[in-house]
């Protein structure tokens, strides 16, 4: 029987046994490096701040209060909504969303291209996509800054070609930040999409063409729905780290438009030195992401339940 079809059937759980002892290292690592730090952050966010960093072990809601309410300089005025941090969050979400969109627009055709090469050359293309990642993120971001600054190679080249008369101000703009995020996380978009396009059976495209679908209809009605899980995975993998990123916003955006990542970084490193507040901001960010993912997963589950 058609192997592609058979493989889409859910494999019975009975045939996927994983023995508990083999999982111990995994649990240890997840517990130590994932759960413990998150619990620590959760605890810190409810403690009292020590000036110049650190915490005092005393329960306090001050960090969350500071995030949401403005009580004046001395904390004695009637509380009003504090917009500063909400604006930072919204701005960060927009930046991350634009970066994710950029990654998708460039990443999907790239992944599709690679997946349709001959098997022999595919690994070379994949290798090329990951080559920039052999260099540290900081260095890559700094070189990006060098490339796009006012008298950097990009502007010089464009002026040399006569495309522009004056350097375009790219550096220290939102666009520079989006570009930096896009550059930082592109492979996280390409790789999962590649994995799902590679499994896609191109006979389905032929069948669709045979049934009077043109190229666009094939893309929208057949290819995209089938590789959708890969696209979602890629978007999550790009969006989530973009949301908390601080290198690109700092180096390429100047410190002009504060984003969540920089805000949190400041609390732990900079002069602001407010650990509970940094922890609270992190927890709020984490909760937002988890809630969004949860809603998405629920909707997917309901949709596939409807289909069955």
């Amino acid at each position, binding site marked *: 029987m*058609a192997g592609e079809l058979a493989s889409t059937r859910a494999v019975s759980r009975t045939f996927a046994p994983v023995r508990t002892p083999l999982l111990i290292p995994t649990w240890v690592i997840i517990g130590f490096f994932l759960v413990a730090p998150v619990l620590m952050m959760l605890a810190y966010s409810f403690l009292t701040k020590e000036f110049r960093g650190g915490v005092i072990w005393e329960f306090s809601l001050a960090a969350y209060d500071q995030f949401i309410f403005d009580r004046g300089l001395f904390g004695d005025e009637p509380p009003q909504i504090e917009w500063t941090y909400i604006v930072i969050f919204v701005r960060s979400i927009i930046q991350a969303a634009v970066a994710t969109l950029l990654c998708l627009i460039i990443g999907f055709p790239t992944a599709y291209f690679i997946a349709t090469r001959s098997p022999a050359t595919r690994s070379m293309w994949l290798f090329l996509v990951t080559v920039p990642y052999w260099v540290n993120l900081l260095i890559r971001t700094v070189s990006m800054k060098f490339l796009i600054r006012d008298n950097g190679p990009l502007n010089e080249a464009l002026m040399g070609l006569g495309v522009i008369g004056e350097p375009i101000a790219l550096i220290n703009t939102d666009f520079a930040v989006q570009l930096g995020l896009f550059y930082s996380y592109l492979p996280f978009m390409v790789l999962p999409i590649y994995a799902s396009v590679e499994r896609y059976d191109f006979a389905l495209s032929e069948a669709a*063409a045979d049934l009077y679908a043109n190229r666009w209809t094939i893309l929208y009605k057949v290819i995209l*729905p089938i590789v959708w899980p890969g696209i979602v995975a890629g978007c999550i993998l790009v969006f989530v780290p973009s949301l908390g990123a601080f290198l690109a916003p700092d180096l390429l955006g100047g410190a002009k438009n504060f984003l969540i990542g920089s805000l949190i970084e400041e609390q732990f490193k900079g002069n602001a030195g407010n650990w509970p507040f940094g922890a609270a901001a992190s927890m709020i960010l984490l909760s937002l992401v988890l809630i969004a993912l949860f809603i998405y997963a629920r909707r997917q589950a309901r949709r596939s339940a409807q289909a069955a």
Partner: protein
Amino acid sequence: MSEQDIAIDVRNAVKRFGAVTALAGVSLTIRDNEFFTLLGPSGCGKTTLLRLIAGFEEITEGEILLYGEDIGTLPPNRRPINTVFQHYALFPHMTVAENVAFGMRRLGWSKADIEDQTGRILDLVKLGDLAARRPAQLSGGQQQRVALARAMAPRPKVLLLDEPLSALDLKLRQAMRIELKQIQEETGITFVFVTHDQEEALTMSDRIAVMSAGEIRQVGTPHEIYEAPNDRFVADFIGETNVLDVTVQRGPDGAWHSRLPNGAVFPCEAAGTPPQDGAAAHVLIRPERLSLVPEAESNSGLTGVVDQIVYLGTDIQYGVRLDEGPDVLVRAQNVGSDTTSFRNGDRVGLAIAPGGARLLVD
């Protein structure tokens, strides 16, 4: 024949993949309403020819006409031809009904028409109650029917089927053969059917084209292909056949005869240009046209020793080592225990049924 009688006209089609020549100049006419089969061994170019007609491959040389119109340059989505793929290629994210409706939607049929036709076609392939299922929730035979329904629903002028039954087990395959043939007759759609199973080809087709190595060896009705093969390849490929080396001899009555090396002479048929008197030739005899007789009663001068008896259920097949010449197969109907009166090692003569021997000159 007028243009309306010829569904597909393939003229000198050549297809090369780099250095590989998959089709080396194929010419064919497929008639309107016909069940036409492309038959040939693996790698002979059947799928390639089908893909050229569907438009998935570009033709290297030659042309393809659909009811008189050159379709060689049209993309597949602009050809009123649909395909049933060997592995079905059903859309896994759509229900059965959505799969079937896909082509009609693209053609812009009205919602009501699509619903009507989907229901009618699903009833035709007996899948009415499974319309809401996904392909992964169907058996192989059911998937095959969905593929057929999906391809037929938009009322194509020609339906192409690439070994659609090869993934099914024998029982289902035999049932589907009859059903496919019935569906073809009911709908009046021209079917171009690819198979490498000669039995399938013989039972279903109006006409068969036998292919080998990118060429067409013979086109004809099942009867013509089986009874009057053009050459040894066709004779060998369609059913089993015995081949004997003979010398051509004109009988006293002007009819054709074959002379065996031992001097025995028997009458035979000759097709096309009759071979020269005295020329070396082959004679083809189907196993069921031979029968075992006591040595003295042979009408052909062929004698030998039984060295193999194979029980086939409805038939019994004997292997006979000829005194002069190769081993031959003889097939007798199993009518009762007395037919097995010949045993291993018995000396026998062979009788040829009238018209059972066919002369071929290579």
